[in-house]
């Protein structure tokens, strides 16, 4: 073999090695995961029950997306931060996710106070923020272009609650909101809507500390003059204690007084192990009911969730899954993870998720901004102890008026 041949062989070998290096480098870049930040409550004082459900729902969605090949050939990676439901921690969590973990979007927040803190950071850094379950209208009223809201909002609950109360002919209504932006905000909104829809209803609210355990001093005065409807605007575990103490004192449920759960907690995994007899006859604002028609994606999400956790599906699961799917869809439409491109993609999106076709309003100046306005809801009544949601009585179907003849009361 002459020198020319040796050189030729070395040259080919060098080229092969170089080609291999480029190929592996290109492959490594293609496989680099797309990071999504998830802020949830995983320890007290916030609602850990909610946080775990949202995390599980998001993980289900990420797995489904990655099993289908990921987004733009890249897998999704969820980076979870515990906010404890505290605004200061939420702010720090989002800051860390954006600056240190370099996430391309943040989602998962389920408590309004924490969401209000987190969106400030997302807005500052121009990172898309998909608000999974912060109901406070103020989150929308801020008008931040980075923030999108595929979940429920207080105005929707207020309208639903007020219409239900008005239809029931209630004259004296008392709300018990928790001492958070969500609780007090919703309590005020219900009052505002009731003034329009049923001006003769006497409505007031009494704020309760979500960290407290004994609500009797707030409940005992009701025995002499019980209201017609008690609106519960609290999250677990305080909500469970309130419902139990109302029952213990014989205040509700009675033939005169029914409880209306405006927080939609009846489908939580720990609901029946905490309330037992107390929850019978409770009317529930429901963002999910097994009798609702779900899109195919929703059915797949439900099956995957039950397989993963052993629990029946609930509305938080679908909201969390939709939040992650929306981010993935935005990346696909934008063709990149550029935040401005993603924000533009989300603004114009029309996509069928786990709960229905999602679009975002661009009407500025109020609660409608970047909000999915047609979030489906129903009203159902629990008619037996330990009753699964699928067996509860649907007294108002999605998009229909309430059917009073279906409402049961204790003897």
């Amino acid at each position, binding site marked *: 073999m002459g020198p020319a041949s040796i050189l030729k062989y070395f040259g080919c070998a060098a080229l092969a090695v170089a080609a291999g290096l480029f190929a592996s480098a290109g492959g490594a870049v293609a496989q680099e995961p797309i990071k999504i930040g998830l802020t949830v409550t995983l*320890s007290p004082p916030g609602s850990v029950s909610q946080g775990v459900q949202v995390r599980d729902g998001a993980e289900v969605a990420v797995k489904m997306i990655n099993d289908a090949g990921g987004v733009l050939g890249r897998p999704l990676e969820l980076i979870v931060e515990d906010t404890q439901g505290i605004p200061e921690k939420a702010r720090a969590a989002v800051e860390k996710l954006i600056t240190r973990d370099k996430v391309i979007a943040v989602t998962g927040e389920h408590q309004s106070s924490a969401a209000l803190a987190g969106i400030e950071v997302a807005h500052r850094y121009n990172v898309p923020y998909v608000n999974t379950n912060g109901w406070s209208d103020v989150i929308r009223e801020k008008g931040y272009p980075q923030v999108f809201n595929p979940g429920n909002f207080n105005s929707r609950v207020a309208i639903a609650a007020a219409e239900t109360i008005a239809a029931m002919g209630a004259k004296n209504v008392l709300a018990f909101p928790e001492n958070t932006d969500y609780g007090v905000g919703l309590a005020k909104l219900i009052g505002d809507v009731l003034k329009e829809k049923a001006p003769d209803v006497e409505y007031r609210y009494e704020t309760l500390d979500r960290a*407290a355990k004994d609500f*009797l*001093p707030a409940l005992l005065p009701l025995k002499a003059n019980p209201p017609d409807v008690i609106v519960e605007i609290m999250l677990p575990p305080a909500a469970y204690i309130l419902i139990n103490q109302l029952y213990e004192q014989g205040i509700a449920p009675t033939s005169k007084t029914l409880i209306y759960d405006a927080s939609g907690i009846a489908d939580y995994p720990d609901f029946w192990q*905490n309330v037992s007899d107390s929850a019978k006859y409770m009317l529930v604002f429901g963002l999910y009911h097994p009798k609702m028609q779900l899109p195919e994606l929703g059915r797949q999400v439900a099956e995957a969730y039950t397989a993963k956790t052993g629990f029946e599906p609930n509305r938080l699961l679908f909201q969390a899954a939709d939040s992650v799917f929306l981010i993935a869809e935005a990346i696909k439409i934008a063709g990149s993870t550029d935040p401005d491109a993603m924000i533009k993609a989300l603004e114009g999106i029309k996509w069928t998720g786990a709960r229905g076709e999602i679009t975002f309003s661009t009407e500025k100046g109020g609660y409608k901004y970047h909000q999915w306005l047609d979030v489906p809801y129903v009203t159902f009544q629990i008619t037996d102890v330990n009753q699964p949601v699928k067996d509860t009585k649907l007294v108002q179907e999605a998009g229909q008026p309430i059917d009073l003849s279906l409402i049961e009361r204790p003897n």
Partner: protein
Amino acid sequence: MLALDLVINGLIIGVFYALMAIGLSLIFGILKIVNFAHGEFYMVGAYTYTLIALAFGVPPWLALPTAFVAGVVLGLVVERLLMRPLYSGYISWGFLRDEYAVIVTFGLSLLLINLVDKVIGPYAYKGPPLTSVSRISLGPVIVSGHRLVAFAIAVAVIVIVALIVRYSYWGRQIQAVAQNRLGASLAGIDTAKVSAFVFALAGGLAALSGGLLANIFNPTPDVGIFPAVKSYVIVVLGGMGSIPGSIIASLGLGVLESFGGVYISYQYRDTFGLILLILVLLFRPQGLFGERVREV
């Protein structure tokens, strides 16, 4: 009728506060430290009662003493491993003991809360009732059946503990060590054993309190924070180390919060005890039944 309702319910909740606070008062009397993990003994008792009854089908009346035993065992372990250095003769602890106690008990509190959160999970569990009667009428006042039975048990336990501390052989040793640890030691009392006994008893009482209230305040990993804060207030109000003081202060606080929550403001209910605490510290810093001490 509302006033009667408030008095009865205030006294009931006050007795539960007393059951928690007595243990804390005893620990301070013997060890002269505040146990910042006291609420977690309550939490352990609440979970033991609830999970043993729910998971193993044990009747509530058997699950309750199990909760007490769990608190006793935890108290013994904590005393032996963490508290013993405070009085085992390390010279350096002379000026570091308070800081040590704060750091160690705070750390223990965080450890227990997060351990339970991770091992058992974050969801709340309602403890089974001690009676199937959901409501009992005491004249015009309605009380939950479980709350009334728990109240009776708590009163009985408080009376027993008070009698033990006042008249029994162990009780006289506790009083001696509380008065003067060195003197008690010179008199032949094994002060380490007495400390272990007190810590175990305190843990058992707090755990029992948690078990009794598990049906009312559904246990979560942080369920002990609320009664612990009340206990600190009560122990200072009543006089640190004074059992009668703790009992009186507990009952008073329960009734005060009941009336204040209705006639003044429910939102500021928890501040009434704190305002009272500030006033007591300003004008009677030794508490209602405590003794002024001068150290030389």
